[in-house]
């Protein structure tokens, strides 16, 4: 799910390959519909219902994302705790994920330890991403929050469906940015964040909050050898999500917009971001 207020002027490019979203006052919500624990993929636009701050909206279309190119930003922990077998499994997982992408899909890589490093910008040349991953070496501490922020902003540079996959042990030890400030960034972003963590995380952690605000999911893996299967599962689930689009009407322009997305079919539940932040025309003009 990705709820997004697509405002926007053109952004500067991180690479020449990037294209940028053009201003349009529509909201896109990335929605995963689930029945009996499995994604539902035969829904029509009329099956969806969206309440924006409690006001029912006219949905323009709801499209299964399988038919659209994706832009995946991989945000990988390269701190000391990843060294060894875990790194081998992580690389293998990424290679399998990249191999599953189509010609129109893009991928990029951000790694983090003390520093946050752009290994590869979002590109269709997936060999660049593989090479960057091979170059990365575990070291130092975890700037998880800073790197998550970078992943969200980088993902915004693409008009394709933005997916951010974060891999970490879930513990930030070195960031400058606060978790709360990056959660605010997530409220303004249309990227969906999936996170994979080694071991179980405490109830209240930055990663759990981040995936919740973005409408994604958190996977806690006990065995790192399961990472390749986990990454493929994430991509598969992401492709079975719907992009629901509408132009807000009858609601205030600025501030936090609480979203309530439903499917009018018995037994089907949805996972979507809980809301988004929108600014008024005047605020945007300033």
């Amino acid at each position: 799910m990705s709820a997004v207020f697509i405002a926007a002027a053109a952004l500067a490019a991180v690479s020449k390959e990037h294209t940028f979203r053009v201003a349009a006052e529509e909201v896109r919500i990335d929605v995963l519909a689930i029945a009996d624990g499995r994604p539902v993929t035969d829904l029509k636009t009329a099956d969806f219902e969206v309440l924006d701050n409690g006001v029912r909206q006219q949905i323009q279309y709801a499209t299964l994302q399988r038919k659209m190119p994706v832009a995946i930003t991989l945000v990988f922990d390269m701190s000391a705790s990843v060294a060894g077998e875990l790194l081998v499994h992580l690389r293998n997982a990424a290679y399998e994920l990249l191999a599953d992408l189509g010609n129109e899909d893009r991928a990029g890589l951000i790694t983090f330890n003390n520093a946050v490093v752009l290994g590869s910008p979002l590109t269709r040349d997936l060999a660049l991403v593989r090479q960057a991953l091979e170059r990365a070496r575990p070291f130092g501490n975890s700037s998880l929050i800073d790197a998550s922020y970078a992943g969200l902003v980088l993902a915004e540079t693409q008009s394709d469906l933005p997916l951010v996959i974060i891999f970490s042990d879930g513990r930030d030890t070195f960031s400058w940015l606060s978790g709360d400030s990056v959660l605010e960034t997530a409220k303004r972003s249309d990227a969906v964040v999936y996170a994979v963590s080694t071991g179980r995380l405490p109830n209240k952690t930055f990663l759990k909050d981040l995936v919740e605000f973005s409408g994604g999911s958190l996977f806690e893996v006990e065995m790192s050898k399961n990472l390749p299967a986990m990454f493929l599962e994430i991509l598969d689930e992401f492709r079975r999500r719907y992009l629901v689009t509408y132009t807000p009407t009858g609601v205030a322009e600025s501030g936090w917009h609480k979203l309530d997305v439903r499917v009018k079919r018995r037994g089907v539940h949805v996972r979507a971001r809980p809301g988004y932040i929108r600014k008024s025309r005047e605020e945007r003009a300033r």
Partner: protein
Amino acid sequence: MILFRIFVSLNLAGLVLIGALQAFDFPQPSGLSNSQKDFGGRWGVDDGMRIRDCRREGAAPGGTYRAAAANPAPAKMQAPGGTEKKRDSSYRREKIEEWLAALAAHKPGRPEPAAAGIGRWDEGDLEIPVDFVTKLASGSSSAKRTLARASTRRLLHLTDQEAREGNLNRILKQGAMLHTDIALLGLEKRPPPLLGGQMGVFADGRLGMQPKKVHWKFARRLLDSVSPSPARDPMVRKWYIATTAHMLNQRLLAYAGRNIERALEIFPSDDKILFYAGVLHETWASPCNQNILLPPLSEVIYGSKGPELKRARHFFRESIARNPDFPEAHLRLGRVLGLLGTPQQAVAELQLAAPAKDPQLLYYASLFLGRECEMLSRRTDARNHYQRAASLYPAAQSPLFALSQLAHSGDDAEGALVALQRIFESPVRDFWKDDPRWVYDLAPVRDADQLIAEIYSLFGEVAQ
């Protein structure tokens, strides 16, 4: 429930880390109970001489934290090498002579074989000469009687004046320097204790274990006996400042905690030591030491973020009260006040640090002022401070992240991306030096090597 108590700190560089914490509040077996009555021998230290209680020093030569908590039996039962030999008077004399020979041979800062030899002793053996000398230096009537004997004076190579005055400061300081160097120069190679004696070590939030180091405490014990009192001896103060700086510089936070605790008992009004105490608690409050993965049923000995920040605030304020012209203390107090949610007070303190000429301090002040101005919704001021920090250290990521996030929160997507692009386009040359924030915890002790060189010089003069 038995808890492991692990004194944690962060090993950013993968060099060293953490401390353990039996020493803080577990009942510790001293391993000295028999030595009190057994000590004496030909040097005549009598039974009435009080033996220093080493429990707070974590003197137990063996025992894991679990063992120490569950079975506070006398540590001598677990002492490597057994206890019988320790009761033997000739064995003790041999150890004392060997220790004194190492003292005489030792030149501060040099890893001579004699010092390395003492570094291989187990803790029980180390107690023998240190206990002997500190008792003699106690000034008690029995110590005076012992010192009056020619055999004692010959053994210790005392001058007539030293013997007459009962002044063992030279030996105490030489001894302190010997044990300091064994710790500083990595000469401590004790046989592994039978039952643990490990320190928890954290790196990247995860626990490892290292052998516990004991020589710092022996150095402290020797200096405690300096006459007329350690509090009146400038060398002792310099020793505490230099060694604490070294420990903080190496991120040996557990050891630094013990050092600071004793230093504050001796020098409760020293602005520098109060400042170091603030730095220690501020560091314990950092994500490196708070966001850690502990084994089940374990806990760290320091507090959670809020209480540690409040302790840091207390010590920084005390330090500034003694020395108002202390920019680095204002800087750190300002940062802590910000983290405690009082941005107005934080800005006031940080502005007192902002005129600093040191670019590193100026960088920190600018960065932290930016954050506090952001908290106060003074976005233009915040941007200016961040930009100043970025101009001081162009390769630093922190101010660029701050500028990017500030732009993004104002719906300036282009500005957010431009700042981020600067991060991505700037290659990381040094994972420790590109951004001074990465070594913020080390900044207050960046003169540690110089301070150590100073005590080498001072203590070297004592030997001559």
